[in-house]
């Protein structure tokens, strides 16, 4: 197979030698964009997101898998879903998750007495979400960690993390006997 080669003539015409027409051509292009994007309605073909302006909802621009500030999800009864298995704190490469476990005195048995994430240390890798076996920790808030005046304000506790949370759609305690009907859709390996 031959490769097509574009041959460019290095010969300069008188028009090229003068430069002025090319400069004018460039100015014309700039002027065309200027008038199109400022005078027409709907911003022309500008892709710039006007970040921070009040009428712009930044979340609509972010992809679904965007990783923002963490949040903790609820159980059906409103208590935290986390069972303090320490998978997230173990996998965390920045070691920014600190959990102290406690006996919950109910059927869930184990839960976090304290759940602290240092958002200043966090490298926003999302491994904690991957590691979580019970859909307790998520990073889908689409919120950036806002700058704080004091370091302590960037260290979020269980209450702050749960204030962003919501009920999880994952079935509590697994799918149960119906899993054969549902599981193949969730994981094709089940169908084998």
């Amino acid at each position, binding site marked *: 197979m031959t490769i097509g080669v574009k041959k460019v003539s290095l010969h300069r015409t008188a028009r090229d030698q003068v430069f002025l027409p090319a400069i004018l051509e460039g100015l014309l292009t700039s002027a065309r964009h200027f008038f199109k994007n400022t005078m027409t309605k709907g911003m022309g073909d500008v892709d710039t997101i006007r970040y921070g302006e009040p009428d712009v909802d930044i979340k609509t621009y972010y992809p679904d898998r965007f990783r923002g500030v963490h949040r903790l999800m609820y159980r059906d009864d409103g208590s935290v879903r986390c069972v303090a*298995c*320490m998978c997230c704190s173990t996998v965390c490469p920045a070691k920014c998750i600190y959990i102290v*476990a*406690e*006996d919950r005195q109910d059927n869930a*048995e184990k839960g976090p007495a304290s759940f602290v994430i240092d958002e200043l240390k966090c490298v926003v890798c999302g491994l904690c979400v991957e590691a979580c076996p019970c859909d307790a920790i998520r990073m889908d808030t689409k919120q950036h960690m806002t700058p704080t005046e004091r370091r302590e304000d960037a260290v979020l506790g269980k209450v702050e993390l749960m204030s962003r949370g919501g009920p999880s759609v994952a079935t509590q305690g697994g799918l149960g*006997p119906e899993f054969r009907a549902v599981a193949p859709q969730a994981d094709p390996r089940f169908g084998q």
Partner: protein
Amino acid sequence: MANSDTPSSATLPPRLPDPPPPASRTVAPSATGSVRIPEVSAAKPPMAPNLPAEPVEGQPTVRVVIDGTEVVVRKGTNVLEAAKLAGKDICHFCYHPGLSIAASCRQCLVEIEKNPKLQPSCQQTVAEGMVVHTESPTVLEARRALLEFTLKNHPIDCPICDKAGECTLQRHYMDHDHQLTRVDVPKIRKPKHKDIGREIVLDAERCILCSRCVRFCEEIPKTGELGMQFRGENESLDVAEGHPLDNAYSMNVVDICPVGALTAKDFRFAIRAWELRSTHTTCTGCATGCAVELHHRHEQAYRIVPRFDATTNGHWMCDEGRHTYKELEPSRRVRRARVDGEEVLLGHAVAMAARRLRGRGRKVAVVFSAAASNEANLALADLASLIGAERYIVGRPAGKGDDVLRDADKNPNARGAAAAAGAAKHEGELALELAGRAYEAVVFLDGTFEASDVVGSALCAITSVCLADRAGPLSDACTIVLPASSWAETTGSLINRHGRLRVLRPAWRAEGDRRERADLIRELVLAMGERDIGSARERSRAIAEQHGSSELAALVSDAKATRPTLLRFSHSRG
């Protein structure tokens, strides 16, 4: 593993002549003072009915072929142990080398030629010329099928299970099964987090019915609290009504449980197993000196578990010993030296102590401790002979003992301390003399001595030096407190009730001004302007030579030997 560094009586080098009885012994130990004591080979640890496979000289052997490898093993051992010798780890749940054989889990099935069916390798005794296949397709299929069967009613609540990370079922699933569940019927529900005794919580759902714990309670403490009830898949482990599991060895069932069915209340939800670091050391709870692993993280101890030692404790240890890690509580540690109630620099405190002890014609008493290491006691003996001090020896009060492992003498180093102290008077006399203000200065090796109020006020009035690792009544009463390292920060040796050398390994580096006791005493002696009596490390080396202990010798010469291992990379327990 068998502690080959502690020689049994058969492999001992020629003994030194027995020392004369303590009463007539003269007081003259020097820097090379010896704590060598003849070994007593009477009491044997509770050992397995199962013979290890290693051939023993003079015992009959058989020749078996395991996966094409020919091995010579001891006659009477089982196929599972023989395979271990051949480097093949056959997966199993119910077999434990320290217990009788039940062959109930069927996980260890192997193929034996000329035998029509798969055989449980734990129960199958080796025979001459036996050809065993542990990895044939039939065996692998059986293993996989049995694991799936075992997992049928297992709740798989690993996220909240204390055993996760060191669970045998998890390991076997990853190694041999590793398939998605095919179970589409509800799992059998059984009692969860049931309090069955002083130390133990039972989760009957997680139980895989291996009956190790049942056999343990019947065979080692011989109390038999645990039992199986109901039949088939409703079979569950339980205690009888009104008879909780509270024998002195109950926490061993947590170690031998291959899953998280039996968990310790003390360790419940404290930390995940994979976060822990493990240091092989010796229990300081009593004179038995069981080989243990101290599990710790960030200079905090979380639990003590037994380590196999054929000469001392077998596979087990007592509950009392497991709680000794609480002495290491960071909030109670003495971190800085104190003189007359004020925190001072260590060098300053040592200089003050040296000046106050030095005075001409002062009556000084030194107090040896049966709870401190040989190194510390020998250093104190040197101090005593240098300043001509009166010798006393103190120890913890006697407690309960039995004929399994526990000793009534709660001092880990009673024999070593007595040998180092020579002719020393006992604590009753010390209390009397101190209350009568017979001494102007006294040096305590640790905080073991229990000072009454009268003695306490007497100590406040004289120069009393205490080498304390944790705050206690004695260190509070003493005028000079030097911060010493605890047993988890010390490289040292103990001598147990059988006269065997037991080794203390440091789990973490002592923080702050904490130093080893022998080093503190050395600094004290140097500050007095006396000759160098040698560091703790030199003493350990000398003791290792005297006893022929390669374990202790390695510890003082090789920095790597003191490094704890991460439990994540060690094998599962149970």
